[in-house]
């Protein structure tokens, strides 16, 4: 199979158009609105050429795009008075996970998510969005607080995976994830999960138990990274495209498999080309999902949550 083109090459023209829009927005020239609308139309046209041909690895590149909105960008755009709560009360405060309370649509919610860094320094500080066990334990602590006070929980998922390190293993990375899965599955408040970028395996799953699971159009959700899969099954780093293709990691695939409930559309060019529009789309679907869930009695909510995951899997019974 031929190697597909880098997404950063593909998007060059769109990025140029977006830069023109940004310049016009900052200027004081007349007819700004019309000019921006015209450029947006051009982006749309350009995207219409690119989008249908995107390969799974190009989607992975969009999901990992350094300009893509991250967890805190959504929190700041959609919520008010976010109060970050730090630490797992056991070992440390994991900077790869952010969590806390905020107001959303006039009511308190708990929000937890993996956080990536924007600059090199920030990326290192955030451990590239790869949580240690204490990150998952912190997330669980805040979720338990939410349950105690009856607040809905929103999780924003964006991680390459749980951090594979010596300390992480010593402190029970597996136990932290497993315990989250078990405990969150019985939490008596509505939980909405949104995969906003990378849904990297167990590291994503640990905050991926919920009543409504949504994915941004160009995010991906995978049992192992395409690189990891290529290395193990093909024993060939050039097989990343095949690995990604075979595993069916795109939002539409996961909707078809019943893993997720909804795809949140991204603006032409991807979330990073028009963050404002992305926030609006997420806001709309998040609000809809929460409103629906809040009407359900707790017992019904929990039974439906159990059955939702209970049904996942395809087997042949003789």
């Amino acid at each position, binding site marked *: 199979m031929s190697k597909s083109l880098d997404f950063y090459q593909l998007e060059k023209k769109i990025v140029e158009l977006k830069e023109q829009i940004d310049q016009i927005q900052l200027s004081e020239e007349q007819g700004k609105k019309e000019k921006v609308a015209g450029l947006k139309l051009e982006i749309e046209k350009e995207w219409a050429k690119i989008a249908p041909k995107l390969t799974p690895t190009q989607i992975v590149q969009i999901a990992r795009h350094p300009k893509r909105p991250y967890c805190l960008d959504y929190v700041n755009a959609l919520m008010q008075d976010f109060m970050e709560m730090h630490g797992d009360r056991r070992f440390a405060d994991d900077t790869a996970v952010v969590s806390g309370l905020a107001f959303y649509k006039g009511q308190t919610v708990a929000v937890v998510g993996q956080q990536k860094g924007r600059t090199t320094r920030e990326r290192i500080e955030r451990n590239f969005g790869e949580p240690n066990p204490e990150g998952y334990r912190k997330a669980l602590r805040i979720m338990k607080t939410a349950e105690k006070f009856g607040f809905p929980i929103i999780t924003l998922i964006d991680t390459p995976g749980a951090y594979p390190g010596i300390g992480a*293993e010593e402190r029970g*990375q597996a136990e932290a994830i497993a315990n989250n899965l078990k405990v969150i599955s019985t939490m008596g408040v509505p939980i909405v999960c949104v995969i906003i970028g990378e849904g990297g395996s167990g590291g994503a799953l640990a905050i991926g138990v919920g009543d409504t699971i949504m994915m941004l159009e160009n995010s991906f959700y995978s049992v192992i990274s395409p690189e990891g899969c290529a290395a193990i099954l093909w024993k060939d780093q050039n*097989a990343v495209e095949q690995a990604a293709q075979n595993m069916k990691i795109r939002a539409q695939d996961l909707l078809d498999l019943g893993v997720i409930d909804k795809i949140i559309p991204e603006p032409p060019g991807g979330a990073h080309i028009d963050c404002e529009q992305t926030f609006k789309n997420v806001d709309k679907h998040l609000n809809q999902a929460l409103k629906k869930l809040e009407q359900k009695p707790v017992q019904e909510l929990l039974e439906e949550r159990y059955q939702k995951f209970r049904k996942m899997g395809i087997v042949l019974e003789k």
Partner: protein
Amino acid sequence: MNDNLWTRCNSCQRILYKADILENLSVCPACSFHFRISASERLAMLFDDGQFEVFDHAILPVDFLKFVDTQKYSQRLGDNQKKTSLPEATVNAVGTMGGIKVVISAMDFAFMGGSMGSVVGEKITRAAERAVREKTPLIIVSCSGGARMQEGALSLMQLIKTSAALARLEEAKLPFISVITDPTTGGTTASYAMLGDINIAEPNALIGFAGPRVIEQTIKEKLPKGFQRSEFLLKHGMLDDVMQRKNLRAYIIRALRLFLNRPQ
């Protein structure tokens, strides 16, 4: 030398008479190295008089993604079914231990590295649900490389499914004993293997979330000796105990009696 009668110990490298190893529960008589055993050997070893009834046997895997790596997944499944005479990587059984009725799901590493796809997730879940229905304790013997890549995200979802089923077992106040054997990594460790009321492991079993090679590549240093082995996990508080295979059955029976408040 007759290959059928003799074998070399993976650990001490001694040439051993196969019958001696088998008689010793597949543990090296010289160095106590615990050989991997099949699900049926495991079940026979644990249940009273080696007697048990297998259930949920006819649940078969499906290549629903039409997954092809260096080989078709459907082909791999067929080959592994032939090789192991098993439909999938775990076997559910019911029987008694020390006279106490228990449900056991025993994983078999020989079937695609004990990887967890839809069938393993479904069977573990059914084992837990049966334990709840029949008010019996549950024992899972893990031996698994983690989630099965060839079933994509649906394999990953089995972690939630099985953990949620164990939450229901917990709500029913029924004991769950997790027995972890060599090797147990990835999604299996990050779900049911770590969720026991007690977690116990056989000696020197590799147990972890990330594989040692992945960790080495990430941190770019050699891993300390004994890292991610049973004794290491015991030291770091992840296990209740490390048990020699020969003591495992008696240990579990004692644990069951304690959990069920049944003195002799």
